[in-house]
């Protein structure tokens, strides 16, 4: 079975986000970029399925400017076999990404597509579900456990109030939650080897997909800051404040 993993290049999660002074966007100039953490978990899950003998090949896909090839190489250093880079000027919005991935699915015929549940920049949480809808396939979102049995995937999902397990008919789309696995680090020899793994360059036109803008970003602002309050010296003082000042107990 072939697995497709889609990955996104985003700001490193340790970097403090700053809004540009003209409020057009956040400032990404000279900022460290990385593989989106949820995408890293998706790559790891695919590798584990390959190590377990369930997957035969892992194809990693990323959409965006030339720089995303860095994240494709990272995914191949971790264990993906080959990569497809679909080149666009900027990172397209989720529906466009889903349309491109649907075309990749059509061409590659994978048994499973694994994606991060959301990217830590736009926080949309949409692509996996949209891809499943466009391809009329089942989805297991926010997965904390994935097992493949015959032509079915059993996916345990993190839902409000607990966990829910679904049986999906393959091909299926899975999106990863944080506790699905703990991603490995790439080893130096593998990083060297990844440079020689095949990377195919495509454009949206190759797939006959026209990128459309559905949602305009008009403005980006820093959130309202909370003011630090006061430090108290005893439990009695705290109870007094909560009762008589804040009136919340």
């Amino acid at each position: 079975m072939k697995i497709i993993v889609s990955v996104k290049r985003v700001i490193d999660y340790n970097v403090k986000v700053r809004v540009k002074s003209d409020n057009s966007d956040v400032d990404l100039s000279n900022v460290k970029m990385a593989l989106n953490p949820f995408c890293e978990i998706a790559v790891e899950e695919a590798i584990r399925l390959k190590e377990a003998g369930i997957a035969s090949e892992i194809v990693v896909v990323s959409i965006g400017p030339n720089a995303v090839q860095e994240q494709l190489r990272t995914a191949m250093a971790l264990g993906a076999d080959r990569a497809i880079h679909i080149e666009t000027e900027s990172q397209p919005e989720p529906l466009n990404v889903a349309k491109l991935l649907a075309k990749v699915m059509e061409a590659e015929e994978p048994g499973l597509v694994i994606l991060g549940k959301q990217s830590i920049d736009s926080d949309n949480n949409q692509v996996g579900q949209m891809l499943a809808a466009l391809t009329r396939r089942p989805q297991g979102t926010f997965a904390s456990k994935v097992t493949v049995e015959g032509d079915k995937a059993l996916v345990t999902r993190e839902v409000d109030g607990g966990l829910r397990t679904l049986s999906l008919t393959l091909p299926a789309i899975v999106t990863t939650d944080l506790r699905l696995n703990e991603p490995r680090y790439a080893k130096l020899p593998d990083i060297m080897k990844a440079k020689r793994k095949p990377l195919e360059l495509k454009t949206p036109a190759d797939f006959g997909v026209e990128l459309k803008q559905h949602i305009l970003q008009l403005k980006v602002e820093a959130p309202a800051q909370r003011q630090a309050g006061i430090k108290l010296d005893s439990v009695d003082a705290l109870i007094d404040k909560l009762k008589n000042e804040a009136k919340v107990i």
Partner: protein
Amino acid sequence: MSILLIAEHDNSTLNPATLSAVTAASQLGGEITMLVVGNACQSVADEAVKVMGISKVLLADSDVYEKGLAENLSALIVELAADYSHIIAAASSTIKDTMPRVAALLDVGQLTEIVAVESVDTFKRPIYAGNAIATVQSRDAVKVITVRTSAFEKAKAEGGNANTEVVDVVFDMGVSRFVSEELVKSGRPELTAASTVISGGRGLGSAENFSLLEKVADKLVAAVGASRAAVDAGFVSNDLQVGQTGKIVAPELYIAVGISGAIQHLAGMKESKVIVAINKDGEAPIFQVADYGLVGDLFEILPELEAKL
């Protein structure tokens, strides 16, 4: 302007998160139709007709919809979509699963977890884990929207008088099947609905020590939450996690115990009305957002708090 609002429920009662979505929808203007889709969920429709601001309730009742499988729910919503300019719902796990499918099938973008309504097509939503707020405008004819419930007051659950219409079209895509679920049983209020939340972090030190926190929670009729560090350390199950990657809460009172205050956690609770921090490290970032801070040993403070409340 006509709005289709998807109700959040457990087949027996309406989840209060729905009432926050009603408030967001009301700010758009126009008639609001509430869709109750589930199995044996007449009691939910009976609650829905009483919600202030609802003009009509659509009831789609079938065993196919019992577990809210996204494949089937989205097909139903798309079938009904033609009559509406906006499709909106609280960002629950079911809705997060379903709504992007609806948007894709309608060939429109989705506006995820809005925190403010600026106009009928323009909204504010957090990006970068709440470290920036984007103002976004939809260019699509139909707006598909999920609502961050902590950002909107709840609409009144009583006083409305809507009619119910039965929707008897049933979609079963046949590609996914419910197998099992493990729901956490608790006598305490639900995390996202509670008016008081007390959360523990790595400072609690062990799963057993969470009982100190639970005793205070019981005195305050509070929900218990946790930081990601406490969840990752295995002290509590992950459905208690408050933060960007867990639950977003905005109670009247939030008490953070032994939580340092990572950005990840703050994104999930900084909209709380009153924040109390209890931590032995007076320099912990949590104190920068807390209205009241107590620097000290939580193992002494928690029992004292329990005794004196």
